[in-house]
């Protein structure tokens, strides 16, 4: 069934298929006329059977037969015996169609339809399936149908598991069988069936089992896929966890203040805001739904009603997101108050897989609002930012400064139960790591290296839940470097993973993070002088991550990397200054996450590849504004601005128009010619500087 080369048809075959087509056309014409006239006589029904025997893909014919059966069943003279015989006839037609092509969706579907009428013998179905699954053990239609039949006849999962195991023993290169095993095990674990009470007892046996397949034939992918499922089962905790927040627990936040004049506040927690509110950000370990003012409550001196509108930060517009944000308004220009946020004390936060958030946690912080003259604020954010090397000075931390990452573990979400429960997970991972190290000592195996890299990262993340130390990151980076050389076809994927690990490593400790913290100082600016710029430039990053540790960043330099996407950047709600110059961003739609960054004022996307390619490939990765339901559309006036020659760039205007920028650098992109730029100036009224030139 598999691995058979396709042969060129012989002349006589072609003649035969032409004759078949002729016959088929005649049948079809006749059939359509019966169907059209709703004729359900014996003759007409038999004709459809003949048609389906030759061409099981004829959906219309299957539907016609359904209508014919319904028609017959509605007749007054119809008794139970004849119902059964009519339905049995249907099963026979399906069977002969399946003999012709047993991957016919229509035929399998029709069979399900007949079976769900409940008049047919199910035992016969199992026998038939045995036959089909013997002929082609991987046919997923048959496996799907098997699950349907097993459910219909209430066959126990244990019996099906045994059957699946036998199929695996016959030939373990069987994705369908492994998949069925994962489905059955999930069901048994969920039911807490006898012998399947605890994951920690079931999974080690499964690891043992899959190792037999992987070690016997590491080149066979089916085993690795099952292994990946097991790894996922081991690593993912069922209930979602809150992994980081902004402001962090116990922090002092200075808002709108003139930071450089007040030495007692850390530049890490000084925020410039011109909107009379500040964001509260919740970062979970997996996408969740149901974050709202009843599941997350706040208590503070200045907002008595405690109502907050929580917004999911996801570009896909779904109701589930890993990051949620709410904006807390402060009523007076000057304020000193403490805020307490309580997450998950009432039920309602649910992971996309349906698990409740069950680690209620509380964090509190102090807010100090200082008044700054509106005018001077306006000026200060409008000041030109030059992403020049000499403008950055490495930041020297003052003695006991609280860097947000240092306070991650202050989140009260760890408790005794969770840590004992994950012992078996750590053990399982340690065993797996040992096992695959051994395999790799024997042979060079790409997927083995990839699995080891994943295992090591999972192990690090698990043994240090709030990652203050990543013991294996060097080894993992080395593995990805190897993989890039070994398997150039998937270079981009490995590069992305490499970048993510690198970022996790850099953000994993205070010391390593501080090496990337700089103070921006140029000859003229004053207000932002005490702010920290996180510089992750020149690291050849192709992807960015570790956002949970970067929520505090307001000024970020990602220039001189190899970024093609900035997916996930929407989590960094505090960003006001963003440097993305000299990367590989290929289209304006790649900037989609920026639309969620309401405080962004200064953006550098110079020297990228926007406009290089006529086809925007990111469109398939993240949804384009054209397919958006939200987001403003260009109004008539705006359309008028856009030159006919720029019609191809409509998307770019949609995207950039919504960004509230004061300063934009776009030079060095194919798209950025003079006509484009002059249209851009008109469509972005807030813009004060474009490519370094002050606008009128």
């Amino acid at each position, binding site marked *: 069934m598999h691995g058979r080369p396709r042969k060129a048809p012989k002349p006589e075959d072609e003649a035969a298929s032409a004759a078949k087509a002729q016959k088929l056309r005649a049948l079809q014409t006749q059939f359509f006329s019966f169907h059209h006239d709703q004729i359900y006589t014996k003759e007409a029904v038999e004709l459809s059977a003949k048609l389906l025997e030759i061409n099981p893909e004829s959906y219309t014919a299957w539907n016609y037969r359904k209508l014919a059966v319904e028609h017959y069943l509605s007749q007054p003279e119809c008794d139970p015996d004849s119902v059964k015989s009519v339905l049995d006839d249907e099963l026979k037609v399906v069977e002969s169609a399946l003999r012709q092509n047993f991957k016919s969706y229509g035929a399998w579907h029709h069979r399900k339809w007949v079976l769900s009428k409940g008049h047919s013998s199910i035992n016969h179905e199992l026998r038939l399936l045995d036959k089909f699954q013997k002929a082609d053990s991987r046919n997923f239609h048959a496996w799907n149908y098997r699950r349907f039949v097993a459910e219909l006849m209430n066959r126990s999962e244990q019996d099906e598991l045994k059957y699946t195991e036998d199929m695996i*023993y016959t030939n*373990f290169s069987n994705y369908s069988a492994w998949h069925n095993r994962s489905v059955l095990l999930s069901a048994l674990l969920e039911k807490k069936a006898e012998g399947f009470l605890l994951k920690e007892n079931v999974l080690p046996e499964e690891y043992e089992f899959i190792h*037999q397949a992987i*070690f*016997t*034939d590491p080149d066979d992918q089916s085993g690795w896929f099952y292994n990946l499922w097991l790894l996922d089962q081991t690593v993912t905790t069922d209930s979602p966890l809150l992994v980081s927040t902004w402001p962090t627990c116990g922090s002092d936040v200075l808002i709108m203040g003139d930071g450089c004049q007040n030495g007692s506040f850390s530049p890490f927690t000084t925020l410039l805001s011109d909107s009379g509110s500040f964001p509260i950000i919740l970062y979970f370990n997996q996408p969740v739904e149901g974050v709202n003012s009843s599941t997350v409550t706040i208590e503070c001196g200045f907002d008595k009603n405690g109502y907050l509108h929580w917004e999911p930060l996801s570009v896909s517009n779904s109701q589930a997101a890993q990051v949620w944000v709410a904006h807390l308004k402060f009523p007076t220009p000057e304020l000193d108050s403490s805020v307490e946020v309580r997450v998950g004390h009432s039920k309602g936060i649910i992971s996309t897989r349906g698990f409740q958030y069950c680690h209620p946690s509380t964090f509190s912080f102090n807010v100090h609002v200082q008044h700054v003259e509106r005018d001077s604020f306006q000026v200060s954010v409008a000041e030109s930012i030059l992403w020049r090397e000499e403008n950055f000075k490495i930041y020297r931390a003052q003695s006991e400064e609280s860097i947000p990452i240092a306070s991650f573990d202050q989140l009260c979400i760890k408790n005794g139960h969770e840590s004992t429960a994950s012992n078996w997970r750590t053990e399982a991972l340690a065993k797996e790591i040992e*096992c695959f190290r051994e395999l790799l000592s024997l*042979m060079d195996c790409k997927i083995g290296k990839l699995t080891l890299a994943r295992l090591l990262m999972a192990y690090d993340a698990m043994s240090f839940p709030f990652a203050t130390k990543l013991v294996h990151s060097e080894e993992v980076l080395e593995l990805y470097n190897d993989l890039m050389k070994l398997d150039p076809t998937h270079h981009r994927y490995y590069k992305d993973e490499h970048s993510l690990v690198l970022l996790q490593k850099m953000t994993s400790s205070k010391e390593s993070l501080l090496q990337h913290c700089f103070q921006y100082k140029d000859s003229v600016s004053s207000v932002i002088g005490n702010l920290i710029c996180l510089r992750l430039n020149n690291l050849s990053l192709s992807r960015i991550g570790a956002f949970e540790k970067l929520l505090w960043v307001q000024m970020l330099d990602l220039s001189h990397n190899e970024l093609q996407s900035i997916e996930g950047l929407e989590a960094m709600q505090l960003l006001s200054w963003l440097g993305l110059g000299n990367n590989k961003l290929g289209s304006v739609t790649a900037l989609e996450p920026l639309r969620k960054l309401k405080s962004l004022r200064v953006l550098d996307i110079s020297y990228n590849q926007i406009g290089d390619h006529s086809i925007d490939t990111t469109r398939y990765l993240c949804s384009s504004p054209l397919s958006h339901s939200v987001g403003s559309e260009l109004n008539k006036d705006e359309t008028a601005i856009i030159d006919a020659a720029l019609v191809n760039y409509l998307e770019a205007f949609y995207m950039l128009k919504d960004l509230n920028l004061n300063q934009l650098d776009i030079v060095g992109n194919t798209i950025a010619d003079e006509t484009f730029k002059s249209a851009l100036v008109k469509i972005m009224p807030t813009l004060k500087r474009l490519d370094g030139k002050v606008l009128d």
Partner: protein
Amino acid sequence: MEDIPPYPPIDPTTFDLIVIGTGLPESIIAAAASTASKSVLHLDPNPFYGSHFSSLPLADLPSFLSTHSTSPSPPRPRSSEGSNEFSVLDLSTRPLYSSIDISVFSPDLLDQNSRKFNLDVAGPRAFFCADKSIELILNTGANQYMEFKSIDATFVGDNKGNLLNVPDSRAAIFKDKSLGLMEKNQLMMFFKLVQGHMAGEQDVKISDEDLQSPFVDFLNKMGLPPKIKSFILYAIAMADYDQEDTGVCRDLLKTKDGIDQLALYNASIGRFQNASGALLYPIYGQGELSQAFCRRAAVKGCIYVLRMPVTELLVDKDSGCYKGVRLASGQDIFSQKLILDPTFKVTLPSGLSPPPPLQAKLPFFSQKDDRGRIARGICITMTSLKPDMSNFLVVYPPRSLFPEQATSIRLLQIASNLAVCPLGMFVLYISALCNDDDQGKKLIHAVMNTLLTVPPINSESNAAVQSETAESGCAVQDENAESSSTGPSDPGEGKPTLLWSALYNQELTLGQVDFICSTPMPDGKLNHDDLIDAAIKLFKKIYPEDEFFPQTSSENPEDDGDGDDDVSLET
């Protein structure tokens, strides 16, 4: 044989070829010659097909063996003298079996069922699904006359009676419980190397230097652990001699040959849909194979006469060239060519001088194989050696049973579902190459003692055993009836109890072409491929112009089409 029923005289009296003996090589040659439109007369002194390759009822086996273990009684008075043109040469039999030891522990039980047995004289034997024999059976249409069943598994045995599963395929390696993960990986990598090499993949090509080196050196070079090495050498490549002891090894396997064997094994697994393993066994026993070729020959016009001893050869007085044979019925039949069963010895009747060209060649009998002899054993039990499994092969690699064991011993258990024995019984065939009778006995006994409970009966002479066991027969029977109902629960060690055994030593001979041709005796291999090669070689020698079973498109018009490229397999 004393009272040969009167036969009508054979007509015609002249043939292209006369073949005496219906063993496998003779039957193949008869079928091939008939297919090449030769007129063939195929004779056998026995009342059954197969000669030394036959499958016989229990009672007939001892007599067959003993007939061929002694020199015949002095030649009977000649029926007639040679004519003016011919000299007459005596055709007598020569001893091929020695040290025959039949032990009967349960006479009643077996007597009742004697006809239900089909015991292979040349066991243990099996087919690889992809070997030459199966190809030949398919090409010649002999598959129409045979049915096969798959042998369930291969095991490697040790001196404690354990049977270790041989991980001989990807699925078997995956399933195996005794191999470690690393061993699984190494073994599968080695299999892949062989597959890649056979498929001609450039990057996995095994170098010529390696191919010419001993296989065992190559396995060492690949870093395979001893256990896996032993599996590959003896249970998959089926090496006969200890490959790691050059002192005793008379047949050092080269890497090339080892790889070929592995490739054959690999191609055999999964070749036929109903066959789970690499090996097949014919229903009703190995004797069916010779018979199938005889039938094939008969379809092409070969004339068969069984129970027809041939007493003399007729040779040209002057040239010494073969002319014909004189049958026990007294009739003289002439032919161009003659093929003789290895049983026969050609001598000059006393007091006569041979034609000059034959002087140096007489007496004529087929040459001994320098591999010496083969010890064979047949055991009958009521319980399987392995519960829940009927038909399987067990290999005891050299030195696995005792330190001096220089050759591997193979054991094939066949159950009643292959129609070789009554329901509920099992036949065990054992064989090993040996230098002499004592060594052979020691090898066979080593296996029997490891696996079976041998009732304490002295088997000095058959008569004594039979009479001694006559009284205790009932008891034995009861015990076995009990044990068969409660599964393998022999009191004591739980080993199956021996009901009957036949141990014998067989001479190995080679095929030969001289003024007459002679075929080889059954060899020491598990399958028939070497014998088929020998038959082809003989055929080519006598008929260099003719093709050996030419491929024809529609050999059997009545054939239903899909039987052509498949053997009939019972599931």
